């Protein structure tokens, strides 16, 4: 019964100050993702920043990141995510919060 949801349409309403080519979150090892059975980041991230790719790994695009930290928590067993805050002033800028 779930309705198809385009998360991009939700994110489109948000204000971001993008730090070009300086992603604040990085996947450490592609192989670790390929061997990860669950790839929970791909369905836990509320901004759908993580997607399964054709090599069996995971592709990360941080532009829509809401800086919640969920991916870091779900990946803590593997420890395959290097999670940092964006530089001061960059990233999501909530108008209402």
């Amino acid at each position, binding site marked *: *019964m*779930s*309705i198809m*949801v385009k*998360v991009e349409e*939700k*994110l489109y*309403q*948000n204000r971001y*100050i993008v730090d070009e080519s300086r992603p604040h979150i990085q996947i450490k090892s592609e192989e670790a993702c390929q061997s990860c059975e*669950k790839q*929970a980041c791909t*369905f*836990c*991230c*509320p*901004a*759908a920043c993580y997607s399964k790719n054709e090599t069996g790994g995971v592709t990360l695009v941080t532009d829509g990141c*809401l*800086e*919640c*930290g*969920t991916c*870091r*928590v*779900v990946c*803590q067993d593997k420890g395959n995510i290097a*999670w*940092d*805050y*964006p*530089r*001061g*002033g960059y*990233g*999501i*800028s*909530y*108008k*209402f*919060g």
Partner: protein
Amino acid sequence: MVEKFDAIVIGAGPSGNAATYTLAKQGLKVLQLERGEYPGAKNVQGGIMYSHELEKIIPDFRDDCPTERHIIEQRVWLLGDDSYVGTNYRSEAFNSDKPNRYTIIRANIDKWWGEQIRKVGGLQICETTVTELIRDPSGKVIGVRTDREGGEIHADVVIMADGVNALLAKRAGLQAEAAPENVALAVKEILFIDPELIQQRFGIKEDEGVVIEIMGKVTKGMVGTAFLYTNKESLTIGIGCLISDFKNGDCPPYRMLEDLKNHPVIKPLIEGAEMKEYAAHMIPEGGYKAVPQLYGDGWMVVGDAAHFNNAAHREGSNLAMASGRMAAETVIELKAAGKGFTASNLAAYKKKLDDSFIMKDLKKYRELPGIMHGNKQFFGAYPDEITAAAHNWFTVDSIDKKSKEKQIMKSFIKRRSVMGLVGDAIKLVRAVR
């Protein structure tokens, strides 16, 4: 030369604001660092603000604090697939001169806090991310390093109010990563709508507000809750579940939110509203047992970063404000007594917390997180059974009431067994006793 302050507060959320304001008001040289573009840019709250803790810090906050509506009615709804069973409490007594609860828009409140802090001489600097704590050879925290050029700043004491991620404490080895069953992920939207429609749909006057707390089928059996709050010209709707459940279930958070918005009892309330922002935030849910080390040589941790959240009563920001104030008062008292900010002296902060509602309430509900996490029936089977029972009971169909009672009882027993029902009752009592 490296600049030195009496205290550095990291973060401009409720706990950091309370700490900074309290310190500045007493004339201490305090620096508050915030990574967002402006105060509130990184903050997310449902949100309901309780006045009592704010009044302790700023007694006349009502003069200019940009709250939304004061709450006169509280609804608690248990949702079935196309129904709800609920309780409401509404009272004219909530229309007092000094209301106890307000709906708020977080960013507005944090900007207001920024003005209050400036008024009492506190220094708040935004667009500055603290990258690490600076420690002397003995391990004592003596300042912070930021991402600004030459961004090293020293202080006698550092108060970490950096929110649920608490990266600084984790990086410094002062705190472990949160277990997925100890944090929830909540997503929410703000929906703008004609205030007249809000007032009609919720049966309220201007400035009056209604909040609805929601459990049931919308969390798809996961441990979680949802909410719908009335602001002045907008509605806030959100849903959150434990990350350990999102990790197992296959429903992404944004789809869960969309299903909530389309639920037959919710949809008419938000119809025609325009979505203006989508936010996500983690909420500390582990309770008493998940509270980390709270102080050490030269540092304290407050608010969400200290895992202070009473999930059972939907209280977070007041624990944040109270803990921020207590940390600041500890600094003020130690300084007045000419004592250093050693771990043994800062234990006074922990004592204040223990003697207050913060630790007392967390302790009261210490079993709740584990019991909820381990007993999904409270979020799946029971909402089903209770709404089905209500449907049966309120359908008039010439079946005698005794037979209806039997049908309902049989259905519960079939789902949970007699011992299961008894066990669940005991668990619920244990969870909240």
